[in-house]
């Protein structure tokens, strides 16, 4: 195999972007999977996409548009999620379709070729810019730092929101923080991974890790590892088979999820069996 490709700057950038994006997405994915709010992520991703398109249409920085839209959506979902007064699924469904509708409207209004708009949908990790990389690095570092600093609060909220509140942990604030991180991660991953695909990079590694361990710490680590491996495998496949990189990354992450589910020790565990024989899990 000809490895000279790795000598090129663009390839090195892509490898770094896959690493940073993998860590950030897979880490926020752990929250999304454990809190059972998958569709919040989908909704934020589409909001970011719509916001970025508005930026392209009106001529301001698409990243800014993506950031404002995903945070704005998170700010609407946040109270719904933390108070639980409305049916969350319904509200998210409405917001999600609204964002998709806005995205199509902005796309439709764009004069001339829609290359830039479409590239936000598919992503292009091979043409990632220095600025993109810096932002990815900042967000990935922030995500990891917050998980480390607020691990016990996050763990308590993931276990049970009401219990977390009852011991004096500001659960609402933690949930807003998590949504903010999710929105930021999606924003900076938009141009390398793409608005349509980003979500599988959030869900799949965390869902794969969920199959393999009963330790939250290990779940975070495994998920990040799977995120990075998905990115790198996808890049390789994209190079070898000349396939679109974002899509190849998603397929790689889905494969990892499939394998993890297939070999999951949790599938065999039944409540009453667990009592007698400790299951062999990581």
């Amino acid at each position, binding site marked *: 195999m000809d490895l000279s490709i790795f000598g090129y700057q663009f390839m090195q950038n892509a490898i770094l972007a896959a690493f940073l994006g993998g860590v950030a997405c897979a880490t926020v994915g752990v929250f999304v999977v*454990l809190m059972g709010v998958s569709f919040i992520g989908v909704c934020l991703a589409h909001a970011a996409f719509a916001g970025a398109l508005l930026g392209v249409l009106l001529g301001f920085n698409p990243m800014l548009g993506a950031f404002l839209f995903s945070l704005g959506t998170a700010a609407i979902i946040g109270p719904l999620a933390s108070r639980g007064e409305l049916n969350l699924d319904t509200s998210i469904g409405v917001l999600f379709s609204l964002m998709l509708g806005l995205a199509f409207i902005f796309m439709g209004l764009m004069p001339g070729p829609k290359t830039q708009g479409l590239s936000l949908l598919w992503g292009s990790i091979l043409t990632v810019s220095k600025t993109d990389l810096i932002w990815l690095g900042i967000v990935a570092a922030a995500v990891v730092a917050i998980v480390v600093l607020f691990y016990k*609060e996050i763990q308590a909220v993931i276990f049970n929101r*009401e*219990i977390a*509140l*009852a*011991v004096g942990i500001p659960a609402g604030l933690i949930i807003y923080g998590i949504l903010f991180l999710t929105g930021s991660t999606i924003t900076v991953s938009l141009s390398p991974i793409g608005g349509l695909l980003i979500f599988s990079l959030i869900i799949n590694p965390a869902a794969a890790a*969920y199959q393999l361990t009963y330790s939250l710490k290990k779940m975070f680590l495994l998920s990040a590892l799977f995120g990075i491996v998905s990115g790198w495998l996808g890049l390789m496949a994209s190079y070898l088979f000349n396939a679109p990189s974002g899509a190849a990354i998603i397929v790689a992450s889905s494969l990892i999820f499939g394998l993890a589910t297939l070999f999951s020790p949790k599938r065999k*565990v039944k*409540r009453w069996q667990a009592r007698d024989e400790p299951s062999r899990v990581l």
Partner: protein
Amino acid sequence: MRNHRGANNTIVKIENAVVSYREDVALRDVSLEVKRGEFVGIIGPNGAGKTTLITLINGLGKLVQGRVWVLGHSISKGSINGIRKRVGYVAQLQNIDPRMPISVEEVAMIGRYSQLGAFHRPGKADRDIVDEMLELVGMSHLAKRPIGHLSGGEQQRVAVARALAQEPEMFLLDEPTASLDWRAQKEIMELVKQIHETRNLTTLFVTHDLNALPDTCDRVVLMKGGRIWREGRPEEMLQQDILSQLYDAPITIKEHEGRRVFLKAG
């Protein structure tokens, strides 16, 4: 023990509390005082406002009118987190995903989080307290197990250990034995009774099931339609005619092996 409210030793004071969720009024003008060291049972049919009343004390319920003082502080946005740290709370059995990546000892440790500030990690002293409480509730041997693999009764014991790990000044139990089997129900009742008696911990125990009320109650509060309908000593309140009125169903009391058993008659 600190005493914030003078000689009367009142630990909870609820004055004319009104709580409503949208159009439904959950509590109508309810007043209640609890003294330090008391064991108060709160009983009544479903929808009587028992849970709402108890969650006023740890600020999970939202007051529309009236005032609530707990441990010498009036409940407000500013004081609530401080109060919650001093109040142990056990809710009904929760539905926990068996795959949830959190172990029994980690769940009990959540109680310690109340005492640790932000950025502080649990140390040896915290782990010792968690070990002690798991031992107390008889769950030490399952400490490393994923919480979702335990039976309902075991999960509720862990919830008790978690609340005690807080080293609380008051203990709130909201239907802790609901949906548990007979044995688990009895074990939790015994455990709560033992904790109250050995630690003299002020305890409020909510249940709709008269047979799930520990016999160590000093006082019983009978709730109906969002109001405190009656309250008094258990031997005065737990009478066939009073309970039949409370539940709008004929109730018979039988003595069985030295214990009162409540039956739905007819």
